[in-house]
């Protein structure tokens, strides 16, 4: 389950070999000079990777896509909405690439758009017609921005009228 694709090993004693043969090594390395905020609380262990006592591991009972930059699962993760359908397939593809790659993020954006369509299909299949007016909060638009609301309604009506007129016109042309 671990996505262990030939990870470079963390050197086990990278610094303990000592650099004392280099003249002046470390003489200015006082942590109090470190402007980084929050001040790093280094211990000797942390440079060796996972040294903390890890929390208990949450059981993985749904599909969790994991960043290729991790060599394991975090102890705890969210389990809502595992990947599914076409959007899920696109997400699985995206997670083949690291977080530094466009091939990771752009497919995820695409999958989100596909997911919207899948959401509508799943709503319809359960006999639920998406209620755009309320889902978009247009009640508030009507209340607080009436002018804009009416303009949009009018524009929508105008477009609908134009399209209908065009269709009727075409149909008549065909029939002639």
């Amino acid at each position, binding site marked *: 389950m671990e996505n262990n694709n030939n990870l470079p090993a963390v050197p086990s004693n990278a610094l303990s070999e000592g650099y004392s043969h280099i003249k002046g090594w470390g003489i200015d390395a006082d942590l109090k000079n470190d402007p980084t905020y929050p001040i790093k609380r280094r211990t000797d262990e942390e440079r060796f990777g996972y040294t903390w006592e890890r929390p208990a591991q949450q059981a993985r009972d749904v599909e*969790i896509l994991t960043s290729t*930059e991790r060599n394991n699962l975090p102890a705890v993760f*969210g389990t809502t*909405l595992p990947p599914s359908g076409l959007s899920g397939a696109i997400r699985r593809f995206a997670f083949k690439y690291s977080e530094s790659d466009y091939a990771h*993020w752009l497919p995820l*954006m695409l999958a*989100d758009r596909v997911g919207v369509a899948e959401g509508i299909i799943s709503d319809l299949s359960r006999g639920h017609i998406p209620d*755009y007016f309320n*889902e978009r909060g247009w009640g508030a638009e009507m209340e607080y921005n009436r002018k804009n609301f009416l303009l949009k309604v009018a524009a929508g009506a105008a477009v609908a009228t134009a399209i209908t007129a065009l269709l009727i016109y075409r149909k008549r042309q065909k029939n002639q």
Partner: protein
Amino acid sequence: MLAMNYRGPYRVRVDRDAPIPEIEHPEDAIVRVLRSCICGSDLHLYHGLVPDTRVGSTFGHEFIGEVVETGSSVHKLKVGDRVMVPFNIACGKCAFCRQELYGNCHESNAQATAVGGIFGYSHTAGGYNGGQAEFVRVPYADVGPTVIPEWMDPDDAVLLTDVVPTGYQAAEMGGILPGDTVVVFGAGPIGIMAAKSAWLFGAGRVIVIDNLDYRLEFVQKFAQCEAYNFSFMEDPVEFLKKATDSLGADVCIDAVGCEATGNTLNYIMGTKLMLQGGSTTALHWAINSVKKGGIVSIVGVYGPIDALVPIGNVVNKGITIRANQASVKRLLPRLIEHVKNGVINPKEIITHRIPLEEAAEGYHIFSSKLDSCIKTVLIPPSATI
């Protein structure tokens, strides 16, 4: 239970039959929500700008509630405790938590390493459901959640889960020295808190830039600062340079993030075509109007994709950039003191209190900046306070 349900850009609804969350890990708690907010960064999700925001998600990373169930390894919290829950999901044990970088926990997000887990903030932030619901699963319950002091107003408490600490940390990361001129870009809730907090670090002058008059009026009163509308400026950078004797501000804070307006090209590339991690206009202005050798502090949210940033000017001007998600847990003790002493009055920024059932209207009002909206609190019908 009731839960906000994301259906796609600009579309949310509230489900009545969402499943009540369950304990999934021994360190989990289930919390009954008493208040949750809609945050400016929820709008980035709402507008479909954050990758891996799956349809069906429940948003909401700013919430308080009452503990109704605890996992077998939870020892500090007990059923009945009223808690404020920091937006970061943090284990308290990993190398980053030990450095008090609670926003960067390594044990809470499978999907990405750059950011830790965040409640209700897409799968890029861990795929957790958020608090815009009646109940929420809270992992690592002994680490983040902090019992709300008896004397504290719940409306103040809910703002301590993100808005106040993020604004405060924005000022803190600015490394403000007494007398410094601080410019804050963005007069949303975070910018308002950043401007207020700048004084706490000894700023000598605080300037806020935005394009909405009602927000500028608000911040001017709330944070006793100068406030200017950039839509009446030929060039905000030039304006700020002139206002600082051509030297620039000591500290610039970007409290806007990826949906900045003000530069058409940047806006189209970043938020319409999504070819970069958001529109970086505010960050451009911050970098270009800070003094040489100055500090730019970023708390605005940007997408993970590369963004156009004038990095040449960062190098040439010798600018220090500091940025992070707020380490809420690190800052809470101090901020609770500040609220107690009346130094900060968070609840004054709440302009809208909306029943959870009307979340869609709440999102639309905030997103479209209707009805002079600054901050919206959602209240579930089951809330008892």
